[in-house]
């Protein structure tokens, strides 16, 4: 895991991804989110846009996890060490998660700005940050899974972005409206409850509900297990 984290900073990609993420985070929060115009001292615009920013940030972070190991053949070096597949999957995931955590911490100037201009609810903001960190974990696990499927990083990126997009919009009003035109109510409710967005609404408000956290934890564990299964089945391909 330490190797993985160190290797993120050993390549320029990490810095490019980090800088673009921070630029866009600020752009969305201040320009489109109307952070100033709202006249409220909170970070709602920032957190509302965050899942959409994740759509680009997370796949960019996760695409290399396994695809690169396959391409370079180092997967053979790693998996012939005395570690279980689950340890390898988890170690890489944790490194990527920590990297995204650092990216999140680096957005704190937005928070400082708001704190300087008004009196935001700091507890709510901390809760929202924590929640966002859990959401990142869910996305990353999906990315780990798509990266385990291929040796091509671009394919891993696109698959992850697409899968995360589907998970996001499943709860978007436009999507649920469309589902309602043909699907029975219980199915709509089921799909909506599977969406990242539905579970993110409370987090934006700074409410860290145990059920939402549990949801993201389950998604994370599920996709990490799926990565393990895929890698076990086709590690040498």
């Amino acid at each position: 895991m330490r190797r993985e984290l160190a290797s993120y900073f050993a390549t320029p990609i990490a810095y490019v991804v980090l800088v673009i993420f921070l630029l866009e985070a600020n752009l969305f929060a201040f320009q489109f989110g109307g952070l100033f115009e709202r006249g409220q001292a909170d970070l709602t615009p920032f957190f509302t846009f965050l899942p959409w920013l994740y759509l680009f940030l997370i796949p960019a972070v996760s695409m290399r996890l396994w695809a690169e190991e396959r391409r370079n053949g180092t997967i053979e070096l790693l998996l012939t060490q005395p570690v279980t597949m689950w340890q390898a999957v988890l170690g890489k995931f944790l490194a990527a998660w920590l990297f995204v955590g650092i990216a999140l911490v680096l957005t704190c100037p937005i928070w400082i700005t708001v704190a300087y201009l008004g009196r935001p609810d700091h507890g709510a903001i901390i809760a929202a940050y924590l929640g966002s960190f859990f959401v990142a974990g869910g996305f990353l696990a999906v990315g780990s899974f798509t990266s385990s499927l291929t040796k091509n990083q671009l394919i891993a990126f696109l698959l992850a972005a697409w899968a995360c997009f589907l998970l996001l919009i499943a709860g978007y009003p436009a999507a649920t409206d469309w589902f309602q035109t043909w699907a029975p109510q219980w199915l709509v409710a089921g799909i909506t409850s599977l969406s990242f967005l539905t579970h993110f609404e409370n987090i934006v408000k700074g409410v860290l509900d145990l059920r939402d956290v549990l949801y993201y934890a389950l998604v994370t564990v599920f996709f990490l297990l799926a990565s393990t299964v895929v890698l076990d089945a086709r590690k040498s391909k």
Partner: protein
Amino acid sequence: MIKTQNLTKNYDGLLAVDDLTFTVEPGEVLGFLGPNGAGKSTTMRMLAGFITPTSGTGSICGHDIATDALAAKAALGYLPEGAPLYGEMTVGGLLDFIADLRRLEGAHRKTRLDYVISRLQLEPVIAQTIDTLSKGFKRRVGLAQAIVHDPKVLILDEPTDGLDPLQKHEVRTLIGEIAREKTIVISTHILEEVDAVCTRAIIVARGKLVADDTPAGLKARAPSGRLEDVFRAVAA
């Protein structure tokens, strides 16, 4: 010690390794010979726990490669074909990482790291990233990571492939040096290597074992007394 029993690997109808049974004892250096595509790497990958056998079993120091995989891997040092390494890491960083995975600790860890670094003459490149190294140095790093935990069993897949004659000689000397109390398997298609380092050789062709003898015994099979002629006769 290495044991295999009816080890078989079937890739969607392609029989890469076909019913291979052999044993390698401590102190032996087994040359694993065969034409390209004969199943050498597949066999070694199964023993190293990277590929799952279709049927049959294998064990490293008595640890079954399927049911006791972690213990088998812990007893084994393995150099994959082409010696893949993390190119963006430094030599020191990679050896530290492997030492972590191998759970080397304290004074023992330092002794072992110092030993492999000096034995493989890696001091001058210790802070360099692996991508910047020459092929000879990369192979030495690959060997260093394989022996850093002082394994009882060593499996080296084409350890001298692509090296110049001087480097080949260095690698063979190293193998000879550590061979005494270890079980070593090296795959190669360079026949002179068998004479140089191996106490025994087996030849596989199309996944099957076709010869198992000492280098001298193999040579005696051909009227010419040349290993090359024996190889051609049994592997064709």
